[in-house]
């Protein structure tokens, strides 16, 4: 280190050093908070909410970006729904010219899939409900051919999405299984509002912004000034490949905000989504979250770092618990299939994973649209 302090050091070097010093000072003043969690847990959503509450809000330019995300989400979700319906019913995709459907032998495909997942057999009547009627062929074809470079929702696109969403029972039936095929809950909201969203003068409002779902790649940081304190919050991507990058931010962390989606106990992680045959008891995002949480707790540099566990989507959980028990992810749970005891169990389970008793662990719950509590 000492060797570099030679006489030849010029002023630019010194300026740079001064800059670095200044940055360092600022860094030590700011509390560095890391938003971590498995993919789709709601880190970026939390980040957006922080920005709306404690930051300067979202300006028009950012809204333009969210608009694009929302449009992208609509197109991708409807394409997925169509493709999954076609796959289940073994209905050839209409008019897709290139890539003669399956460029590879089916045997190989099945081999690779079987090794990864675990088929659940379906009866013919069950399969039949996913059959998209002939009358929608044109819509399907139109939508599947979109490669969203400029993903504006044209009038034509809106019409097709609307007719499929509102009039095609197969699409609705498939949407019921969104947990297995990686379609966000909020897509229903956008489908229902497709006309408003498709208008040329559409600007997303707060609710739209918070509901927009998109994968994050890499990391972004933002400073928040709350009273006298400065918080530097880092938002990161949560999929497996993105988690490899986390270690780069682990230096000097004040606290880890670990986000867990309460409803993910029957959802297949994005990286594993295949088709309806997936068995959610063997593979779901809650198991993934637990694993990620354990790994994060184990990091040497976090042994003295405080953790705040955020349990997200409590509102959606209240609905889901009526249909799906948490035993999917917690086979030892013996309590009633109700919101309060289930959530208690989940939070205790997460806390019990901490093996460093002096480490500070806080629990927080929040709702998907926490911001709107004030709006309603």
């Amino acid at each position, binding site marked *: 280190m000492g060797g570099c302090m030679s006489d030849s050091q010029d002023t630019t070097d010194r300026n740079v050093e001064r800059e670095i010093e200044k940055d360092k000072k600022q860094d030590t003043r700011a509390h560095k908070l890391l938003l971590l969690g498995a993919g789709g847990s709601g880190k970026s959503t939390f980040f957006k909410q922080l920005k709306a509450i404690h930051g300067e809000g979202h300006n028009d330019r*950012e809204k333009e970006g969210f608009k694009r995300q929302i449009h992208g989400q609509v197109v991708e979700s409807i394409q997925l729904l169509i493709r999954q319906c076609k796959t289940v019913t073994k209905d050839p995709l209409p008019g897709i010219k290139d890539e003669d459907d399956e460029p590879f032998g089916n045997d190989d495909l099945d081999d690779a899939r079987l090794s990864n997942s675990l088929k659940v057999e379906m009866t013919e009547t069950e399969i039949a409900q996913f059959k998209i009627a002939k009358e929608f062929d044109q819509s399907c074809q139109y939508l599947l051919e979109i490669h969203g470079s400029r993903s504006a929702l044209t009038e034509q696109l809106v019409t097709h999405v609307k007719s499929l969403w509102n009039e095609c029972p197969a699409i609705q039936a498939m949407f019921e299984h969104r947990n297995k095929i990686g379609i966000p809950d909020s897509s229903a909201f956008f489908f229902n509002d497709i006309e408003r969203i498709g208008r040329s003068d559409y600007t997303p409002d707060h609710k739209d912004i918070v509901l927009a779902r*998109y994968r994050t790649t890499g990391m972004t940081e933002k400073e928040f000034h709350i009273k006298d304190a400065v918080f530097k919050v880092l938002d990161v991507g949560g999929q497996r490949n993105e988690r*490899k990058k986390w270690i780069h931010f682990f230096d000097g962390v004040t606290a880890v905000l670990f986000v867990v989606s309460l409803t993910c106990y029957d959802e297949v992680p994005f990286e594993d989504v295949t088709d309806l045959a997936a068995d959610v008891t063997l593979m779901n995002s809650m198991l993934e979250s637990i694993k990620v949480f354990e790994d994060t707790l184990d990091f040497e540099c976090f042994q003295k770092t405080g953790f705040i566990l955020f349990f997200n989507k409590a509102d959606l959980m209240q609905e889901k618990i009526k249909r799906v028990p948490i035993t999917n992810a917690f086979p030892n749970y013996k309590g009633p299939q109700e919101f309060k005891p289930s959530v208690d169990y989940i939070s205790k389970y997460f806390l019990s994973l901490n093996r460093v008793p002096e480490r500070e662990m806080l629990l927080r719950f929040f709702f998907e649209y926490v911001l709107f509590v004030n709006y309603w």
Partner: protein
Amino acid sequence: MSDLRPYKQWRWSDPHNNNNNNNNNNNNNNNNNIPRQASLSHSKETSERRTAIEMSYQLTLEEVLAKKNGFELFASHLVKELSLENVLFLVEYMQLKHFVMIHQLCRYVSDIGYRIPIPPTLIQKHLHPHLLQTHISTTAAWAICLDMFHYMYAQYIMSDSVALLNLSFESSNAITCQMHRLKHDSTVHELQPLIAVFDVAARDIMSLLRADSFYRFQLSRECIRYCEELI
């Protein structure tokens, strides 16, 4: 094999790229405050600047990638955000396609498929000159091409890859199946199906960039400065 190394030189840890990034980094702590800053220095705000801001709204990912300086600016933005692997994958895949097209291999593909408008100079600069020679036989070209595919697969797709991409299971599984198929049949007729599965991944990555990284890039000071230069 050794011929290929220069082709792989544009890497993740490319020291040149990192330097660039550090220089950019110094005066760039507050990317997000442009509108506020602009209103503070109200008198200074020229109509040119306003046009630049207006322009940055309208930019598309393709337009930025298509220009050499736009491409480099976006790449250094991704370095800061730790997601450079996305663009590296796209460049290396386009290099592969370029290689296919300038050699006899192109006779075996009816459709070169998805093309991202990355400046030809960038594509060629980082390809080894040997690979650009025209007299390579079809067999040799195909062997090199296969090697490129194996490299791409190991670098970006396999679960333990250094620069693993954020791909859906569907996309990466299709590639895995196709790569496994090469064990039984590695004739040049496999080229078209290989392109088909890699195209799906390339499209995936483009839409990931478009919806996530690119929109933050558009908000950055660098992007507005870039637009000012365009005017």
